[in-house]
């Protein structure tokens, strides 16, 4: 399983290396989302600062969505699904491999967005440990849920529209949790943040487990 996961992750990252889509397109888009939000809200200091954690995570979510779509558009070639089913790769391995590749790209995005937020919204940063742990856990949760639902949407020619629809409600708790945890960290009350991290940890584990067992049947259909 681990071997298969590494094989798949390696393939995805090599493809990214050759095509540089995440680098040239997803990363600028992430910054864009930040700027856009600032447009939409009145450029009134107080409001923006209050909403920073929420906006950060909404931005992560939207650009993460793009990274996920790319991850599945790779697999959308005609007959790719059949090829994977015939390949002998362990479905759990495929799942973990894609989670790993997406997770790595997401982490890079989050660092970038973090810098963007810190600079653009001039938020003073405190509570490092909580921030880092929150980011890690939330990333795993997003990557796992995204990959699981990604395969549901994949191969239906409606990926672009279906994936966000499936994913956003599922990730709403992650959005709330990570926002609250960030607020706690930035607000100097980390102890209020940890329960949220715990919640997201539960979600992450839930989706990893669901993916490891559910990916097989999902690839199975028809």
């Amino acid at each position, binding site marked *: 399983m681990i071997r298969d996961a590494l094989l798949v992750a390696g393939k995805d990252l090599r493809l990214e290396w*050759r*095509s*540089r889509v995440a680098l*040239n*397109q997803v990363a*600028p888009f992430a*910054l*864009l989302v930040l*700027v856009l939000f*600032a*447009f939409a809200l009145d*450029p009134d*200091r107080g409001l*923006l600062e209050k909403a920073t954690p929420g906006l950060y995570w909404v931005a992560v979510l939207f650009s993460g969505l793009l990274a996920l779509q790319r991850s599945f558009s790779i697999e959308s070639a005609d007959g790719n699904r059949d090829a994977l089913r015939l390949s002998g790769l362990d479905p759990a391995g495929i799942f973990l491999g894609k989670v790993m590749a997406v997770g790595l790209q997401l982490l890079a995005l989050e660092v970038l967005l973090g810098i963007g937020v810190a*600079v*653009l*919204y*001039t938020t003073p940063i405190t509570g490092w440990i909580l921030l880092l742990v929150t980011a890690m856990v939330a990333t795993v949760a997003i990557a796992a849920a995204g990959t699981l639902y990604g395969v549901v949407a994949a191969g239906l020619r409606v990926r672009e529209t279906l994936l966000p629809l499936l994913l956003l409600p599922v990730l709403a708790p992650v959005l709330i949790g990570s926002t609250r945890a960030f607020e706690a960290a930035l607000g100097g009350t980390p102890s209020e943040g940890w329960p949220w991290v715990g919640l997201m940890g539960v979600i992450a584990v839930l989706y990893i487990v669901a993916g490891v067992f559910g990916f097989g049947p999902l690839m199975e259909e028809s």
Partner: protein
Amino acid sequence: MIPQTPTEVTGPASTGSRATRVLGLLALVALGVLVLFGLILSPADASQGESVRIMYVHVPSATVAYIGCFLTTLGSIIYLWRKSRWWELVAYAGAEVATLFTVITLVTGMLWGRPTWGVYWVWDARLTSTAMLLLLLLGYLAVRRLPADYEVRAKRAAIVGLLLVPNVMIVRKSVDWWRTLHQKPTLLSNGLDSKIEGLMLFSLFTGFIAISLVFGWLIVHRFRLAWLEEQVESEGLDIAIAERRAEALIGEVAP
């Protein structure tokens, strides 16, 4: 049998010439003069203190970034019209260098904003439109660097580049009607009156000259590099054709 890739073919090895070396030299000298006047000779500003020295880079950078965008749009128009590769490369070089100077404007502006406004960033009209400009440029570059053939990338990028200046103008105009914190035009609107003191004004002009020279030098070199890559490619073409034809002979021996 691994065929030679076109880049291994040797061509003119340098991107410089006598003229550009002189240009580079002039740019260096001007930068030296800028450092001398900007950091040492010119006085600190009455209200802004030492931080005013950032202006000598900040303002000229913004200006040459605009020039770069203009080059991109111009090059794109001519490429679409005349299919001129030369102008396409001008457009590309313009966009890359404009991106660089937009970043410099943003960074210097932010460094300046901290002591003056107390924050690195505000959602002010000019700042926001500068950020948008950067994003538009990144969009152009993303298209120009698509993993596809030259013609495909060039044509699509040209359409994006064609709309670059109009877009910048629209973004500019739309945010101008917003709230503004940034410096209003000081130089031209007020003429050379007492607002800027003599030595500061001179330093600023030095800044314009130095940054413009650097800009010109970068554009010329970026363009030359791209052009040489093109040349090398088309020189590789004859070899590639010969190799391709050789495939045929092998094919005929064993049909």
